[in-house]
Every structure is written in C-alpha cells, then in structure tokens.
C-alpha cells in the first residue's frame, strides 16, 4: 500500500503558563527587553477592552465583543505586520489593529455605532472589523491577488475564529489562496467557543489547522497565550508570504475568558471551574513573569504602565463621547460615488423632515 500524501501539524510553545522558557527562545526574544513594547500593547489592549465593557454597561457604547485572554494572539501577529501589509480583522483583534495604526478613538467610534470609526486615518487599506462570520476571507484573497499581480512584497492577514472554520467562505478562500499561491496568513484564533457552542461541537477534526491541508496550504498550531510563539510563527509566515512563498494557516490556541459579547452571559453554558483553570494560562501574566524573571520589568514599571494605559484609554473614551453624532443625511453619504438624482431627492426631503422635527422639539421645549 502506498501513501500518496502525509501531513503533520507542528505545535509551538516557548513559554509555559508560569512564564518559564521550556525551549530556547528565538533570536528576537533573547533580549527580553525587546518584548516590552509587545507587553505594553497587550496591557493597553486589555485596558481598552475593560473600558469598552464599562462604557457598554453604562449605556455609552453598543454591544461589544471582548478579547479578554486573547491579547497575545492579536499582539503577536500584529507586532510582526509591516505598514504595507493589510489586516482584515474580526471583532476580537484590537491588539493588532492598534499596532497597525488604528486609534483607540476609532475603535470606540466603531463600537459606538459610528462608521466614521472605520475610516482609519492611519492604515487606509486595512478593513474594519468584520462582524459577519468568515465573509472577509474571500476579500483577503482578493487583496492578496492585487499584491501578487503588481509584484508587491506585501502580505495580508485574515483573522477568523474557530466557529468560522465551519463556513464555506473559509474553505473557498483557502482553496483560492492555495491554488493561486496568494500572500495571505489565515489566522485562526481558536478561543474554544462560538458563542455557546464549544469547539468539539463545531467540527470532528482533531485540529482546525488541518483544514488548510485540503487547500494545499501548510499549517501549524501555536500556543496563542504565548506571545513569543505567536510572534515567531506569524513572523515566519508573513516573511514567507511577502517573499512569494504563498499562504499559511496558523491556529492559535487560546481561551475566551469573557462572554461572547456584552449581550451574552457565558455562565449560562460553562462552569466557573474551567474558566478559572484557563485564567492560570492567560497571556499577560505569563509574559510579565518572563520579563520579571529576566530582570527587565519591575513592580514600578507595571504600576507606571497601568497608569499610562488608563490615562490613554480614558482620554480616547472622552474624545469618543464628545464626538457629535452624524447629521441625519449622513445615511445617504457614502452609498455611491455620486448620489443618483432620485436618492438626492430623498436626501433633501430627509433634511427638511429632520429640520422640522428639530424645530418642533425646540417649540415644545
């Protein structure tokens, strides 16, 4: 009997949950102080995340999807993206968005229901958060196709979660990226839960990474709570993609410590004990211990960082809260390059209607 094809999935972890290096760390991490910017980004991400939840709970932000516990995934690949790369994020990747130049104010605006928050001043080509599941995967292949046809050494990062791997758009996009050898990193953040559906109810495969093999794409698993492993794997995949080596799939194993969104209550479907267990593996404490053990991070540094992050996030929240809402006619803006006459009439009518309502409200007031 012959064996026409064989596949294997490497798993990478450098730091154990206690923050000890269990194997020699890669060159970029040998000077532990080089990891401090990533640590800062993770703490900033968590601070932003907590603020977003607080704003939602007090009625000042829309439904919000927390990334608590997943900071190393997003910061890990975000820190190895170059300015020319393009990010197509899901709703749990603010770490990468921040590192790629999206501002905190833009992110608050986005969750506050203001699409001006999607018009990033910095990374013009980055996509906004994709709320529908998996629909961004074909777009990622298209952006990568444009890079490839123009011969540009740029890569695309397409994020999605464990639940999304069941969707046809993912299979179709993987297949296209494989057959056309497009420069895309498909970044699966496996946080074990698709709302209330656990990973094992999503698919019978042993890993999510192996879904890449059906498309002829190499794949690996990474400890998504180990910043060094994430950065290492994503860095190699993106370098390969920029050099014309084609697509790659990384399955980052992590855990959603929070609810699916602020509209969810995860205590209804999972027990505290398993959540507590996963808290012991969370990424920020892990990297902090590593930095502290290496002697590059002190209690004072930590306190200063927490204060600085709180100040930065609070200032961004204030700016967001002070941003006046868009005028009513904004609903017609950005629909077409030029508004067709019949819609221009509707727009004018709406302005009139809104003005009348405002006048009436003033009269009553």
């Amino acid at each position: 009997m012959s064996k026409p094809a064989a596949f294997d999935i490497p798993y990478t972890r450098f730091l154990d949950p206690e923050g000890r290096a269990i194997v020699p760390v890669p060159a970029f991490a040998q000077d532990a102080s080089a990891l401090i910017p990533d640590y800062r980004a993770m703490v900033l991400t968590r601070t932003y995340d907590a603020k977003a939840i607080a704003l939602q709970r007090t009625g000042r932000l829309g439904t919000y999807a927390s990334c608590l516990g997943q900071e190393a995934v997003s910061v890990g690949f975000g820190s190895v993206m170059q300015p020319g790369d393009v990010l197509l994020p899901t709703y749990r990747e603010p770490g990468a968005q921040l590192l790629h130049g999206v501002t905190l104010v833009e992110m608050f605006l986005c969750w506050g229901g203001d699409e001006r928050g999607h018009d990033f001043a910095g990374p013009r080509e980055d996509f906004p958060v994709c709320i529908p599941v998996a629909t961004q995967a074909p777009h990622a292949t298209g952006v990568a196709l444009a890079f490839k046809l123009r011969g540009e050494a740029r890569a695309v990062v397409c994020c999605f979660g464990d639940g999304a791997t069941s969707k046809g758009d993912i299979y179709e996009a993987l297949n296209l990226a494989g057959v056309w050898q497009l420069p895309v990193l498909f970044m699966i953040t496996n946080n074990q839960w698709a709302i209330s559906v656990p990973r094992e109810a999503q698919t019978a495969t042993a890993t999510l990474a192996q879904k890449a093999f059906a498309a002829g794409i190499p794949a690996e698993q990474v400890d998504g709570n180990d910043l060094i492993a994430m950065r290492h794997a994503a860095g190699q995949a993106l370098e390969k993609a920029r050099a014309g080596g084609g697509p790659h799939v990384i399955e980052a194993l992590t855990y959603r410590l929070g609810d699916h969104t602020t509209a969810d209550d995860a205590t209804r479907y999972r027990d505290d004990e398993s959540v507590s267990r996963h808290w012991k593996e969370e990424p920020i404490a892990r990297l902090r211990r590593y930095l502290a053990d290496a002697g590059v991070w002190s209690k004072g540094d930590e306190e200063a960082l927490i204060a600085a992050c709180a100040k930065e996030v609070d200032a961004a929240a204030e700016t967001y809260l002070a941003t006046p809402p868009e005028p009513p006619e904004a609903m017609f803006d950005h629909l077409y390059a030029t508004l067709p006459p019949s819609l221009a009439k509707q727009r004018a009518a709406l302005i009139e209607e809104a003005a009348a309502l405002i006048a009436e409200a003033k009269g009553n007031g």
Partner: protein
Amino acid sequence: MARKITFQQAVNEALAQEMERDETVVLMGEDIAGGTGGEGEMDAWGGPLGITKGLYSKFGDRVMDTPISESAFVGAAVGAATAGLRPVVELMFIDFMGVCFDQMFNQAAKFRYMFGGKAETPVVVRTMFGAGLRAAAQHSQCLYPVFTHIPGLKVVVPATPYDVKGLLIQSIRDNDPVIFCEHKMLYTLEGEVPEEPYTIPFGEANITREGGDVTIVTLGRMVHIANEAATNLAKDGIECEVIDLRTTSPMDQDSILESVESTGRLVVLDEATPRCNIATDISALVCQEAFDALKAPIRMVTAPHVPVPFNDTLEDLYIPDAAKVETAVRAVMEHRQ
C-alpha cells in the same frame, strides 16, 4: 454607417478595449480563459458561450480561470477592487447568485457605506440571465429585480449591441459595484457598434420609439418584443412610446413620468416573475407620482409567477411575446373611465 457586430462581440470588444486602456482591469470567472494551463490555452475558447474568447491570448494572467467557487472569486474580486484593481467577474448564470449573493449584497454593496466612505469597490459582475435557451428553471431566471432592491449596487440590463458596449465600458470605469445582466438570447443579435470606445451614462433611459397613445416601459430582451408590438399596433393607428430603461439602478424615473404625463397610459413589460419586479416598481412609481395623468389602469406584462419551464413549448408560452403586449396595449386604449 458604423459596422455591425453581435451583442456578444460587443461585450468582448468592450472588455478588450478597457483592458488595453487600463492595466488594472482584470477578468475572473469559470472557464473564461478556456483551458489556462492546459494544452491549447492560447486558443482560448472563452467560456460556455465564448464571450471572452481570445482575451487570454491578448492579456495572459489578467484573464483568470477560477475554481468553481463563486463565493471565493466574487469575494476576491470585491477585495481586489478595494486594493486598486478593477475586476470584471463573470458569474456564468445569474441563477448562481444564490451561492455568492452575500458577497454582492452584504459585502460589495456595503463597503463604501460601512467603511465610512474609505473604500471604493469598482467591481463589475457580468452575468447571463433570461429564458429561451431551453436551460430549465435553474439556469433561466431574470433576477435583476433582486439586485435592484439593494442600495449600493448598480444594475445594468442592456438591450442592444450598441448599448452593451457603452454600458459595459461605463460599468468598468464606474467606482461602484455593478451587476451587469446580459440576456442570453441577445448574444447573437447584430447591430451597429462604433469601433472606438464610448460610454453610456447610467440612469438615462433610451426612448426607442416615440408615440403619443401608450407608454411601454421595458428592458433587456423585452425591448425588442415591445418594439415589435409597437410596430404591429401602429398599423392600427395606436402609437406607442417605448422606453428602454437600460439601468434599473439608478433608474431614469423622469423619462418614465414625462412619457406617462404625455400619453396617460402605461404598459410595463418585464420578463421577470411578477412579484416585486421592475414592472411592479414602475407601476408603484407612476401611481404615486403621476396618478392624475392616468386615463386607464396600468397593465403589467410579465412571465407567470412560476419557475421557467424546461419543456420548449411551455417555455415559449412562459416568455412574454408581442401578442401579449398588444393585448395589454389594446386593453388600456379601450378602457373607459
């Protein structure tokens, strides 16, 4: 006099001329190169009806055969459009929209809007529609009303070789997503087409025949049916004004309303099934905006509300013909208030 070419040649010529003019224009679709990577690829046959024949030979890698994966390649085209390309995608049959509709109505149509105005999505989805080719219920539908329903999309339904060239070039140069619907029974239709590139603006209907008695609003293949009926009716002294919409989004409402104001009678001819189609849309428009001008109830001539039959006799019965249009016109003419 301009030379005569077929509707199909006009599509091919528009694609070739735009690809020559603008190197960001790329084609994607199933079988459009016709054997890329295989033997005989330079003699590309260009899809099931040969619409893109020869383009791979001229433009090489810019003509991309895709896997049978509509959601991926339509979505990829949408993504590529945001990254500086002008993809023209061929969706072989409009009926296949079911497997990639999300990428058109929920993605392409929403990008500029939801990205806060940041994204341009200059993508064209060329697709073949309509009954008459004995292709049965899953390959014969007139689904342009579905796209017309979606804000953010533009929808083009050309009727002649001249229009298909000008409207396709306009679609490719347009900075919004365009669904470009080609009636499969028109591909062999010949007509005068200038050799040089030209554009026809969206939202400007074409009055193919002037007349003071009845307005017939129609589109696509049905324009020819309407003209045939109008010619027959003229023998009996009934003068029809035939309006070819050319585009359903944006739609030239002014031309429709002006004509109805003048004739006072309206027949709407639409090959699509009758619920929520272009005929109902125009009827509603005229009822709201020109009700007082109407001398008779509006008549709609459409296919029956059933799938397209496979059997050739039944299919012929299904498709609106000139006789049905003439009956409708006579009915509105004979109406007594």
